[in-house]
């Protein structure tokens, strides 16, 4: 049942305990307990809104940075990854298979700011062999939600027997 609760919350984090109780047939107290436990053990990390910043004239620039690194003895990629993800400018950090090792999403106010961060903070880290920056031009879809694109709402007939 935890899975079902998580699915409902992942789809809409504002679904109330009471609503979830109705949808799952569990008592409200049990739903509340399971959510609390999930929050405690970080099964649920956080509740956030998906914002389309383009709508509020809050210009921000994001870039995906490919980072090639030399793994270090005993700690592998983890310690370098940690040095990188501790920077608040990095929003997402993944270790990947393939031609480079880390993929880092960096967000800043201007292209300059992002470029500075990459050249002055990211690239000089010991073990980083090289970086390739890709600036984001348009966000079509993020976290399962369409950001820039066609809304799929078509008007239905009001009554169909």
């Amino acid at each position: 049942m935890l899975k079902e609760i998580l699915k409902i919350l992942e789809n809409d984090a504002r679904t109330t305990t009471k609503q979830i109780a109705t949808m799952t047939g569990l008592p409200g107290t049990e739903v509340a307990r399971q959510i609390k436990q999930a929050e405690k053990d970080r099964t649920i990390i956080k509740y956030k809104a998906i914002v389309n910043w383009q709508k509020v004239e809050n210009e921000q620039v994001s870039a995906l940075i490919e980072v090639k690194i030399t793994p270090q003895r005993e700690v592998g990629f983890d310690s370098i990854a940690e040095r990188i993800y501790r920077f608040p400018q990095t929003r997402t950090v993944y270790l990947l298979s393939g031609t480079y090792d880390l993929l880092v999403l960096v967000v800043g106010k201007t292209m300059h700011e992002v470029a500075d961060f990459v050249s002055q903070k990211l690239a000089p880290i010991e073990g980083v062999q090289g970086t390739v920056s890709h600036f984001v031009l348009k966000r079509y879809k993020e976290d399962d939600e369409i950001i820039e694109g066609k809304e799929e709402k078509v008007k239905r007939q009001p009554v169909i027997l």
Partner: protein
Amino acid sequence: MSTNPKAHSQKYHISQRANQISPSGIRRFFDLLASMEGVISLGVGEPDYATPWHIREAAIYSLEKGQTMYTSNLGMPELRQELSRHIKNKYNLEYDPGSELLITVGVSEALDLAMRAILDPGDEVIMPDPAYVAYSPSVVLSGGNPIMVPTTEENNFELGAADIEARITRRTKAILIGYPANPTGAVMSRDKLAEIAKVAQRHQLLVISDEIYAALVYGVEHTCVAALPGMKDSTILLGGFSKAYAMTGWRIGYAAAPKEIIAAMTKIHQYTIMCASTMAQVAAIEALKAGDDSVAEMIADYDRRRLVMVKGLRNIGLSCFEPEGAFYAFPSIKGTGMPSDEFAEKLLKEERVAVVPGSAFGEYGEGYVRCCYATSLADIEEALARMKRFVSRHQKD
């Protein structure tokens, strides 16, 4: 423009057969609805999803390739093969794709073909009341007589075998059932269906089973009539893609039946329709091949909303039968003392919520309204809040 159908028939000599069936009984309600803004509709009998993208994409690709020609009258061989495999997987029933399956323009066409293929003037078809609005007219248009069997909330809106048997005459040709049911959301248990099957076999009647909602059951199993022992030879199984795969607008369905019946239905189909639309057939192939995951997701979501709807209706104080299939709740509104059409009209005028009066589905739908929960959770909750105000204002207790 005159709205009196009689006047039209005199001027244009509309056939007796066409005059025999009435237009939807709630015309006035539709007109009222069309003139209003800000209405939350629980009256829509279709999924609120667009067709899953992979299905749409397959159809688009077929158009790009130029797959725009007629198909065989029976439907594309690949679709019939996939369908045969699908039915075999689900019910362990074998239908020969070459002679026992016919692809139609929705279940609606399949139902019409079935009636036209088996009925002679005066033949009787026994069916439940309340039931989907097309059942009775489809019999009438084929010259037959629909014989209604009341089903009630007390009996979970299941059709009783004894009630059927009591209405069998020497003119009875078939029993028409449709479970999971529109408008009640009722599902027939295997045992009850088996009793009906026995009656059909005893009296050598056909069972025409509209199983368009077969995929949409919640926590219970759907039983296919044709899969009951010995029933394949006396069942016309009707199914489609509209509800399960959210493909209502594609108009694509099928009939599975003994080859003599399919042959007769195909004759009528080839002269009236030729073949179901090619694009829709391609989409249906993709749905059968790769649609299971999308269907499972939609079912899980309907189920959540079903529970919210039913609990909400009960909290309002309306007694609500537990619907186990389709996407309808069918609460009783008898406590308000209003007939269902008046309830629906007043609810629309006073609170701007559209529900369908049960009387639209037959005499025994009176006292109920159909509420579809295939709409957003937010809309369901707002509609319930409005209905609560309305019912507490009108409750006669």
